């Protein structure tokens, strides 16, 4: 037996190469506290001796690390070290590739021991961490797609916390509301209900099955339950005369349900205490409203007792309401339940029950409860085979109305109503999450640096990023609707939307007609009459302009329109159909500056999407570029990390806690040069090599998403001219942009190698099998709500094949995933 000290020393050395950046902090001085040491099993010692000590022993200290004792290390540092060593072993990052490798049994032995030590010292369980999105790529990609894994796929039996959109729908479903009213309620939400659930902001799949209800949720759920239960009883109380129908405690909250379950009404209206049967009816009604099922006998008995005592204490209405509140607090209201049932197969798996399957399918494709046909299929025993699943998934994919909704209501506000409506918002949401471009809304910019065109989100507006995000949504929606070579199109399209308007060509024609009609007439209104121009047009002329401008246009509108049209005519262009009435040309879609279009002097295309120079695919869309930028600069590290993790299924180790990454200030150097000053150091390059060469290829775009060939050296020493405009940008010296990069990790020697810029890199990425499979892996996570494990191998291979064989149909991927064993089978977690 060895003492732990010696081996901790070895292990610290073992991972020093990778974490050399903070190696100084873990050099220890002599002096061991014996109470802190533990024995190391001989077999573990043998593994360390044969694999680690030669480089990190007493004779050699690679990474300049020496540890004679532990006493100088704080408990946290020791724990952190063991935890990192555990990661190194699990992810096979040590020993280095060119060194002798331990066998799998040796690795397992060492890993198990490290894990037990980490847990003993109070550290977190790495295996627990592996369930989280950041660790999804830790499963070996080659193994997953090798076809050699024959394990039967399954998902663990689970509760899956509802995402915010499902919560909204479940709350709406509590009430019986006519479809037209439902549209309004979906838009506005309930006044007294606050959604307790939020998803993380990070790019990537965000809705995982590993979140638990907590105290923060509960506080909001208690408030919500009060409001909902009061509303549920209000019609009955009005009928009883306790409350007047036209009197509102809160004038902003005038919505009342028109219909409530008869069982509630009966108890409220009854002067006498209700019978057990009446209470049971009310309990069943509330279960139906809230949990969308009947209570079983055991539940009924419990709730009857509660309701009876609450009624004895508080009277019929208040007692009944307390029962309703309690059902609203059932965790089942907030969790999706997927446990499976029936006889386990040889692998211990059970198929989802038909009811569970109906919810799993409906929540995979949308946020709403199963539609009538799906419920019918579940109830009639027609949701228990792969074919049944396929039939229902195909039917719902084909149904363009059941899930139809605004893609992102948070983009709307004030007078803005810009979010697109789409048939299956959830499918679009996969690409939104994956690419992460909606995060452009979270990156605040200094307006002056944009020369005043950029507007941050604020009260009543989602600003410039809101408009750009919507245009990226349109790009994604187009690719989804075409459903051919979806990934390649999204990565490689040269066509973009920029302020698209309906019937643009017809509007341009109308404006041209107005121009031709009035160009030689005296249409100008004298400045003194601008506010209220005299009537100078004939009835025919008024009719002419009203047909082409607005139904109520007058001389004033003609003046504005002609000013607008003339501006473009002088430039030899068609008039822009986005006629920003009544503001004239200078408010013409300033956000299109992010595409290097120059309002108001840009020729509006006759068709959208249209080709925009120097751009290729969504990674060159301003929304993506802004989402992956810093407040006042580009962010090559973040952009590179995104490509590495999302497209190449790669992994970048976490930033060591001791690293305080800061790009140095140097007025004479570009960001690239300044970044390289710090990251080319050996200890930094270990990680940055996985990001910088990919991210620097995007330096051809600035942090507002504009294409550039020169970078402004924004430093007070470099100012050439101070702006005079309130929101103008100062003019700085510039330096040429170097957007060269290096692509590695596609596994294809024809694609890997130096790239001249991001367009070149994207061309190659779009052709990569690895990239396609990486997106499939993320799609798996999105629809399964968890990271893949090796036993999901066949599911992933099938989905990849489905994509290839269907010539790039994402719907085919969805069908494949939702009819896979990973989706259909559950296996209980061990107790």
């Amino acid at each position, binding site marked *: 037996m060895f003492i732990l000290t010696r081996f901790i020393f070895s292990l610290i050395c073992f991972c020093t190469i990778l974490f050399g950046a903070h190696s100084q902090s873990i050099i220890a001085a002599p002096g061991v506290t014996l109470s802190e040491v533990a024995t190391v099993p001989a077999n573990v010692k043998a593994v360390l001796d044969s694999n680690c000590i030669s480089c990190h022993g007493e004779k050699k200290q690679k990474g300049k690390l020496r540890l004679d004792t532990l006493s100088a290390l704080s408990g946290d540092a020791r724990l952190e070290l063991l935890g990192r060593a555990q990661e190194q072993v699990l992810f096979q990052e040590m020993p280095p590739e060119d060194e002798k490798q331990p066998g799998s049994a040796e690795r397992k032995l060492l890993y198990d021991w490290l894990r037990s030590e980490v847990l003993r010292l109070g550290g977190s369980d790495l295996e627990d961490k592996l369930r989280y999105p950041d660790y999804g790529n830790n499963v070996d990609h080659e193994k997953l797609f090798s076809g050699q894994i024959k394990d039967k796929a399954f998902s663990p039996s689970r509760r899956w916390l509802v995402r915010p959109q499902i919560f909204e729908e479940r709350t709406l479903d509590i009430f019986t509301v006519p479809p037209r009213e439902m549209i309004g309620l979906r838009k506005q939400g309930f006044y007294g209900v606050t959604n307790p659930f939020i998803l993380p902001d990070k790019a990537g799949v965000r809705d995982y099955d590993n979140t638990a209800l907590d105290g923060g949720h509960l506080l909001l759920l208690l408030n919500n339950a009060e409001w909902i239960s009061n509303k549920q009883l209000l019609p009955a109380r009005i009928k009883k005369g306790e409350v007047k129908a036209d009197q509102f405690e809160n004038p902003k909250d005038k919505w009342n349900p028109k219909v409530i379950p008869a069982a509630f009404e009966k108890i409220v209206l009854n002067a006498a205490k209700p019978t057990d049967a009446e209470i049971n009816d009310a309990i069943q009604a509330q279960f139906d409203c809230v949990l969308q099922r009947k209570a079983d006998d055991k539940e009924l008995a419990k709730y009857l007792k509660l309701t009876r005592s609450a009624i004895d204490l508080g009277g019929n209405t208040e007692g009944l309401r307390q029962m309703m509140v*309690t059902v609203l607090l059932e965790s089942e209201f907030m*969790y999706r339940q997927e446990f499976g049932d029936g006889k386990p197969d040889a692998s211990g798996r059970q198929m989802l029950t038909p009811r569970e399957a109906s919810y799993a399918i409906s929540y995979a494709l949308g946020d709403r409860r199963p539609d009538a046909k799906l419920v019918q299929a579940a109830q009639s025993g027609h949701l228990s085979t792969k074919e049944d699943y396929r039939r229902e998934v195909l039917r719902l994919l084909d149904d363009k109305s059941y899930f139809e909704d605004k893609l992102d209501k948070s983009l709307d506000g004030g007078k803005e109503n810009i979010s697109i409506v789409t048939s299956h918002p959830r499918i679009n949401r996969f690409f939104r999450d994956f690419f992460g471009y909606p995060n452009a809304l979270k990156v605040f910019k200094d307006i002056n640096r944009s020369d005043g065109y950029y507007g941050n989100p604020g009260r009543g507006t989602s600003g410039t990023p809101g408009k750009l995000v919507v245009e990226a949504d349109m790009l994604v929606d187009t690719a989804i609707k075409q459903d051919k070579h979806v990934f390649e199109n999204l990565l490689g399209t040269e066509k973009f939307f920029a302020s698209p308007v309906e019937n643009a060509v017809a509007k341009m024609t109308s404006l041209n007609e107005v121009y031709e009609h009035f160009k030689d007439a005296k249409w100008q209104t004298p400045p003194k009459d601008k506010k209220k121009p005299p009537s100078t047009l004939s009835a025919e002329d008024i009719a002419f302009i009203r047909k082409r401008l607005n139904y109520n246009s007058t001389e004033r509108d003609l003046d504005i329109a002609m000013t607008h049209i003339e501006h473009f005519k002088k430039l030899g262009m068609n008039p822009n159909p986005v006629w920003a009435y009544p503001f004239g040309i200078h408010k013409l879609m300033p956000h299109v500056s992010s595409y290097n279009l120059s309002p108001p002097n840009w020729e509006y295309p006759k068709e959208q999407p249209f080709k925009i120079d120097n751009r290729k695919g969504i990674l060159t869309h301003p929304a993506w570029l802004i989402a992956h930028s810093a407040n006042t600069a580009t962010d090559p590290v973040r952009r590179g990390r995104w490509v590495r993790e999302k497209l190449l299924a790669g992994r970048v180790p976490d930033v060591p806690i001791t690293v305080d990454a800061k790009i140095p200030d140097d007025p004479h150097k570009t960001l690239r040069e300044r970044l390289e000053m710090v990251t080319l150091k050996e200890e930094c390059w270990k990680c940055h090599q996985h990001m910088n060469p990919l991210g620097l290829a995007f330096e051809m775009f600035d942090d507002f998403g504009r294409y550039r060939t020169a970078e402004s050296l924004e430093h007070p020493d470099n100012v050439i001219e101070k702006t005079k405009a309130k929101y103008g940008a100062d003019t700085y010296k510039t330096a040429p942009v170097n957007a060269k990069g290096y692509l590695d990790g596609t596994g294809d020697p024809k694609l890997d190698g130096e790239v001249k810029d991001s367009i070149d890199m994207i061309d190659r990425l779009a052709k990569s099998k690895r990239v396609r499979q990486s997106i499939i892996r993320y799609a798996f996570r999105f629809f399964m709500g968890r990271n893949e494990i090796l036993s999901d191998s066949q599911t992933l291979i099938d989905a990849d094949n489905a994509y290839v064989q269907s010539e790039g149909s994402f719907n085919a991927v969805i069908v494949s995933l939702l009819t896979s064993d990973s989706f259909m089978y559950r296996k209980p977690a061990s107790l």
Partner: protein
Amino acid sequence: MRNRRNFLKQSLFGASAMTLAPHMFANPITGNPPRRFIFIHKGNGLFPSALVLPTLSEGDKAKESRKEPFEVALKSHSLPEWMSALNEHKESMTILQGLSGKMCTTGHHTWQSSLGVYKATERPSSIKWATVDFEMAKLFPSPMEHIELACFPTGGGNARGNINGIEKGFSARGPQQPNYAFGSPKVAMQELFKSVASNKNDQIKYELHRKVLEFAAQNQSGLAQNLGGVEIAKVANYASSIDAVRERDRKLEAMSDVIRKHVPKLDAKYFADDLTTIDRQIGHAEVLLATLMAGMTNVVTLTLDELGTPYTGITDLEDETVNLHDVGHGKPAGKFAALEVREKLRRHHMAVINKIVSKLKSVPEGGGTMFDNTTLLYFPDNGETHHSNGVEWPFIVLAGKNNKLNTAGKYIRLPGYGKEGHKTLGNWYTSILNAYGNPIPHYGDLDLALAADGINQSGSIKQFLS
């Protein structure tokens, strides 16, 4: 063994779970009195010029107008006349000028911005993190954790439907989580003091509430049995949260003698639904004092007014409902010019603050008074004026002798916006948080324009902590 109890110990780590964790309700082992914080904010801006001491020397006046840093002892000067209610508290008082908050101005209304130091809007998704008052509440836990009272707006772009109800407030518990505030002294009394309600109906309601939580806790605990692995967290965590609410209630019940002793004995007019804004503010101040004195909370946030608050009950304008937005645009109210109305309101605010401070000074605690352990901050919710641009964000602070910042008794003018050494709202809150045990490197968003000018705006204001 990974049983539920052990699991709960480990799993109560989330910020929101922490707020309900039973151990958080315990009194400090040291027996030292807790530190208390009162955040009081107002709408329509606060003119920095109104806070300038009238007796400043010519040299200091010049520095003040050039926004150059200086400080003077308040005891050697007279306060502006409208602050005269605070004359007796000069030794505990700070007038702090020169902070900026451009990173948290959104025009007329600012929602959680002034307490969170980010641009919050009408969208809850704009709330980036817990506001500073909630951060302080985490440092000094109490049964109720945090209480927010507000004179809600009914007009403008931030209107609430029911100014007498419980509505979304101006503080935030965490990202995307607006807090809820009590709109009237009546509803605050009903909710906060329900465990000692004397009214039969209220007693029944409280009993029912207990019953529901007891049932729900048992129900969810039952679900946690026979679960394994990660699945246990999903229901056990929830069950524990319900238990924590019950534990909070139990604590309050155990404190019922103390709470009952401090139940505000207010005149009936403060419990009316149509009470004036002025009375509402006074009523809220009484509730605020009662909850602090009873030990129910250590942090209270009070919104005295917001731009959309319809003002009633102003001295000499008793028959008017004054629209603060109009006042902001220079419109007179009754026979008073807009500036006079502003001054009247500030004068009343000072009277409310005097009431709070004087009362706390009269309550013995730990060899001194409750005020010794209290810090009160009065500030605008949107900077210096009606259409604020956030270049100035004046504060009036009253802090007892045990406070950990060395600012008491001073008029402090910090360097103006964009000048070397300039400080922001983020620096100010970071100083408070650091002083009281939260080591956060910087609280709040940064001002991008200041960053472009090369001004380091990260961290605390060192001279306040020395």
